[in-house]
């Protein structure tokens, strides 16, 4: 029997962009991406890929849920066309990702999920590539009162339960939960497949619901628990002592000797 899956997808500035494209506005305590396009957070793409694989093996109806300010329809279309069945977007000025902490985001998502109809499984990326906190998925499960399993490298449905291979630092473990449940997905699942041009065309006809803040019935104000008080640029660059030799072999030897001389080893 096909189950209903909601995949939560955040739009972020492309995390593979060069460091110079992340402009730090210390006064407003926000990062502005310059010259790089928005993408779906790569871990959320992994979550969507996991959902599509479930759809292929045991059947599923997939809704892509995205919440933010000024969402790119093109980015959503490309994701939906990869294998989702519908999309639900919540787009509002107040949903600026730079102003929402994980507590506010989880509460807003919980409200949006209330508008998405019945669900059996929620899939989220393990963390977002911009804020990197790794909290929203778990918070959402807690707010919805459903079991949560993190860091999936494989997600399957069997006998009304979700079966997850969960990544551990030294391997993995298999964890099961009854549905409805929430699973956060890790990169090990694999990249989201590319949609064909035909699928992108067909994707435009898939049902899409766009909601505003008023539809959610929740205001972001007061939901946050964490405040950014200072934002600075990292000081990554160092002065590199280049070791040279007449031959590469000599340079290798001299490098080891320099490390000893400088008491690094």
């Amino acid at each position, binding site marked *: 029997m096909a189950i209903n899956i909601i995949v939560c997808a955040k739009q972020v500035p492309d995390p593979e962009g060069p460091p110079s494209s992340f402009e730090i506005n210390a006064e407003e305590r926000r990062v502005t991406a310059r010259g790089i396009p928005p993408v779906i957070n790569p871990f959320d793409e992994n979550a969507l890929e996991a959902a599509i694989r479930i759809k292929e093996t045991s059947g599923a109806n997939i809704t892509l849920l995205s919440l933010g300010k000024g969402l790119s329809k093109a980015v959503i279309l490309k994701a939906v066309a990869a294998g989702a069945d519908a999309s639900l977007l919540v787009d509002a000025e107040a949903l600026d990702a730079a102003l929402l902490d994980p507590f506010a985001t989880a509460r807003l998502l919980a409200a949006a999920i209330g508008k998405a109809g019945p669900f059996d499984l929620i899939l989220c990326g393990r963390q977002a590539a911009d804020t990197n906190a790794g909290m929203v998925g778990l918070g959402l499960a807690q707010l919805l009162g459903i079991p949560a399993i993190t860091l999936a490298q494989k997600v399957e449905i069997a006998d009304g339960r979700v079966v997850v291979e969960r990544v551990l630092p030294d391997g993995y473990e298999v964890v099961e939960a009854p549905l409805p449940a929430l699973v956060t997905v890790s*990169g090990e699942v694999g990249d989201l497949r590319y949609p064909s041009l035909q699928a992108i065309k067909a994707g435009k006809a898939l049902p899409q619901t766009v909601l505003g803040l008023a539809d959610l019935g929740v205001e972001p104000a007061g939901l946050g628990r964490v405040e950014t008080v200072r934002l*600075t640029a990292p000081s990554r660059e160092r002065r590199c002592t280049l*070791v040279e030799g007449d031959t590469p072999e000599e340079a290798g030897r001299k490098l080891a000797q320099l490390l000893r001389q400088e008491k*690094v080893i």
Partner: protein
Amino acid sequence: MADTQGIYILAEIGEAEKPTAVTLELIGLGRDLASRLGERVSTLVLGAGVREAAQELALYGPDEVLFLDDPALSRYDPELYVGALVPFLESRPPRVLLAGHTSLGQDLFPRLAFSLDCGLVTDCVALEVDGGDILLTRPIYGGNAIATQKVGTSKVMATVRARVGEAPQPSSAAAVTPLETAVPASSRLSLKEREVLQSRECPLEEAPVVVSGGRGMGGEDGFAQLTEIAGILSGAVGASRPPVDSGWAASTCQVGITGKVVAPDIYIAVAISGSTQHLSGMGESGKIVAINKDPDAYIFKVADYGVVGDWRQVLPSFSAALREIMQE
């Protein structure tokens, strides 16, 4: 505001029933915070057969060790941990609650934070006391920006990266007492098999030396040479993403924003160009050594020492010289 008190540290037990390195580092950090805030440091340890580990923890400077020893806790089940900890933390609300930014910390702390409605900042690289506030610093945007945050609740929770704090020297033992709380009778999760793919003798995140290879390694053979160097320096082998994607290195070795975040004393990057994604995982290392044949590789901008050259020619003599030096 509720009356919060004390700095609490969630301990983790690793190999041979010993507290993990990050646990001891957190006690060091906790002591530092405690002296500034005039608080006490309590260490919490949960598990099956953890009495001995609790005694060991007591030597590292907390004011007390609270342990919960229950056979049901032999493997980490987040629902049992949350069920046991929430009533305790509600009855004795801590001012600060810290865990390592480890597999367990990342899974457990968001659950606890939402259950307790307590502000949490994850992946911290610095903690400071500023008047009555505790400021928590963490990299965002893959390390392209550094945010300092504070939480608006009376309790403060944080997960802290390995190698941020300094482990205290063992001293006189603190009191060790059972944690007065009950483990829930059941969990909605069921834990099935567990597959170990890599020995935990030298966990990557705790290794003092990490020797990593990148796309330019070209295959598994190169990684054998990195393993040899890691052996000489008592370190661990890492990799950037391309070797993992190509199957030359295990996914458990991956260093970077989508892999592990490490900050060893020495990071040796071989045939790694230095993408944002990789730098986010090792940029905080003590000393960075780069070997790359491309003189314009970005890695040389963030390295302390470097050789421009093909690793095939540079590594054998580097490795031989290291062996001689380490045997001296």
